[in-house]
């Protein structure tokens, strides 16, 4: 089967040194990729943002600078980590196709680790060429934290599997081309042992994608209903019923990418120490509402700067430690847990300074109340799950005992979504 998939190659000189590659990447980026503009969002899940990112990724492919360290047999350049680092440095000033972040940071390493030759030859190069945006079908409406307790079923049928269930919290789900999807293939074994990872064409009939509107009005997330969706057997990643191992690889890669700063290019400001600035917005607000001389309010404004500075310093320190291997992967949970603690406190402080202006304001003025409203540690893994990771994986404290890891899945109380 493997020989039927033809993998197109980028045009790039053979045997390039890091310096030669860097010079070529620099010239190509300058001529074909837009620079970053201040204040632009990191991700832009709309027609314009996605079209631009597809075009940029295509430009990287056309310039022979896409998938720098990825094997040539799958469409990459097959160059070294030093070449990749040179690319990241050169790309730091340019808009990168961050909507492909999931594909590069999570899907490609997972496919390389566990995917069949066919899957690798079929799916990696379209990412590099800007054709395929990938999403993850992991969380479900009935359970996010307890991923291994998921309910989506994959039943064997002629030539493959039929999937039924629901997935949720896919960012930009309506712009995805392919998804990596975890589903249950065997309910008669303990929950971790009966899962399988699939590659799913998001345009397969039976997949219905709907945006989920959040409490602050934003709608970047989607929910997917999966109704009798056929997936061919060759789309199984790894072995049937060995999906938890694949999912673990996926999550490890996700964490280390977060440690790297997630961006496909270098990110100035996150990896470099730019110093602590005292951002004036909140002090300006205090002046506006006549509270800037109140000692209590001044202490709160100072506290907010402290929170921001500590978050930034910790992000740099943990990121560097993860890259250097000085901290194990689960240490990335420190950053998410801290964001989950800092966010609500920042919201409280904004509320205390803004007072009634957080409840109602002149049309067009700043909405300060929303900082309190939406400052939660839920998305991407709740703060409680981060605390478990820190406690169990970093501090080595024992797990809570439970039957759910030993009993067959069928005999467990299943995850539910209360009506």
């Amino acid at each position, binding site marked *: 089967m493997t020989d039927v998939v033809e993998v197109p190659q980028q045009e790039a000189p053979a045997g390039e040194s890091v310096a030669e590659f860097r010079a070529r990447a620099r010239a190509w980026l300058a001529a074909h990729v837009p620079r970053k503009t201040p204040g632009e969002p990191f991700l832009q899940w709309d027609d314009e943002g996605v079209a631009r990112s597809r075009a940029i990724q295509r430009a990287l492919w056309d310039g022979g600078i896409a998938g720098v360290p990825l094997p040539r047999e799958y469409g990459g350049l097959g160059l070294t980590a030093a070449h990749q680092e040179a690319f990241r440095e050169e790309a730091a000033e340019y808009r990168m196709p961050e909507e492909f972040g999931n594909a590069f940071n999570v899907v490609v390493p997972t496919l390389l680790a566990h995917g069949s030759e066919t899957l690798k030859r079929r799916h990696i190069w379209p990412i590099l060429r800007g054709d395929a945006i990938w999403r993850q079908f992991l969380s479900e409406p009935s359970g996010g934290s307890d991923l291994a307790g998921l309910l989506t079923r994959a039943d064997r049928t002629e030539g493959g599997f039929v999937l039924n269930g629901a997935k949720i919290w896919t960012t930009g789900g309506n712009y995805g081309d392919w998804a990596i999807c975890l589903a249950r293939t065997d309910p008669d074994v303990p929950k971790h042992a009966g899962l399988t990872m699939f590659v799913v064409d998001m345009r397969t009939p039976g997949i219905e994608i709907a945006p989920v509107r959040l409490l602050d009005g934003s709608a970047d997330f989607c929910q997917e209903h999966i109704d009798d969706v056929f997936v061919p057997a060759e789309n199984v990643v790894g072995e049937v019923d060995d999906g938890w191992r694949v999912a673990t690889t996926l999550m490890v890669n996700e964490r280390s990418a977060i440690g790297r700063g997630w961006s496909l290019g270098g990110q100035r400001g996150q990896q470099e120490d730019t110093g602590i600035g005292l951002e004036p917005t909140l002090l300006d607000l205090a002046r506006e509402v006549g509270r800037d001389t109140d000692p209590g309010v001044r202490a709160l404004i100072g506290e907010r700067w402290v929170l921001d500075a500590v978050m930034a310093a910790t992000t740099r320190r943990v990121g560097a430690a993860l890259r250097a291997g000085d901290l194990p992967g689960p240490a990335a949970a420190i950053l998410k847990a801290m964001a989950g*603690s800092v966010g609500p406190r920042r919201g409280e402080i904004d509320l205390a300074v803004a007072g009634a202006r957080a409840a109602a304001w002149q049309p067009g003025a700043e909405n300060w109340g929303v900082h309190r409203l939406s400052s939660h540690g839920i998305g991407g893994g709740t703060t409680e799950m981060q605390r478990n990771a820190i406690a169990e994986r970093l501090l080595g404290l024992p797990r809570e005992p439970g039957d759910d890891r030993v009993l067959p899945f069928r005999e467990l109380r299943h995850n539910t979504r209360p009506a």
Partner: protein
Amino acid sequence: MAFGLSDDQELFRTTCRRALTERAPVERVRELIGDPVGVDRATWAAGADLGWYAMFVPEELGGGSVSGEALVDAAIVAEEFGRMVHPGPALTTNVVAAGLARAASAELAERVLPGIAAGELIATWAFAGPDDALPTTPPVTATRDGAGYRLDGVASYVPDAAVADLLLVSTGTDAGPAQFLLPRDTPGLEVEPLETLDLARRLATVRFTGVQAGPGTVVGTPGDAAADVEHQLRVALVLQCAETTGATARGLEMTVQYAKDRVAFGRPIGSYQALKHRMADHRMWLEGSAAITAHAARSVQERRPDAAIAPRVAKAHVGRRSTATLHDCIQLHGGIGMTWEYDLHLYFRRVISNEVLLGSPELHQRALVDIAEGAAA
């Protein structure tokens, strides 16, 4: 290379830890609790061989640091001191050394810095007032008197004043701040020991009554020493944060180990989420303390644009979070945590003491607003 430290700095840390654990385990620290001097002389001498008092002293005066980053190296020592709740004047001696290396005349520097580097001279800094741990104007005044000055007033919370050979005194003059380096036995200078929450730390009030400070005792330019005092404060804040971070790290380690070993209701208490989530939060804020302290050390060391801001940010974070962590470490221990013979309260005492000395977290938060307004004005 770990956490931005060089291999040399990592080795230095290991050496410091070994010296302290071998010579001054917590049992030894306990022996010194009632001792009026409160210094372990053997460890002090070993510290001189390891360069603990030499990093701020120029090489030509017998000093030098492991890495060339004097404050980062000194912070490593401070963190290790915190881990062992080690007593003694090493940190305050280094603050004085940093101040002298910056502002002392060549003659004065040559006279005292070699002795400081060699561990032969103990120095401390008299800067706070009895009711003002972080004074805006120094509590001691200096008035012109012939060729020198006359010093009057009361400095307080002076670390290890009773054992110090030299006192660096920050004073106010009509023209502005001035600093003097005085031998402790200078006539008119009286050291009155205070009772201390931190049982392994000596703090004293120092009374100056008509103290004659000759021209040779002047450090920097009289009336123009504000920036010198500020620099010493930054160094002191960084070292204090490093020490607190070390003490907090050790206290949390003890607690996590206890939670693994202690079994109740049929399983280790550390398996209960109600407890382990709290320890996870403490671990998280501890990482923040280490990160912001390291940032502040480098900012001050390299005189970066945020060198005034970073130590105050660090103090505000480290001071508050560490006390909360140590309090909860005791709570997580249960009964044993309340006892005198369990070491945890020694750590708790150190971090509480460090929270309020050199200005409370809230005070430093307000100082940030002052800085922002000053910059905008």
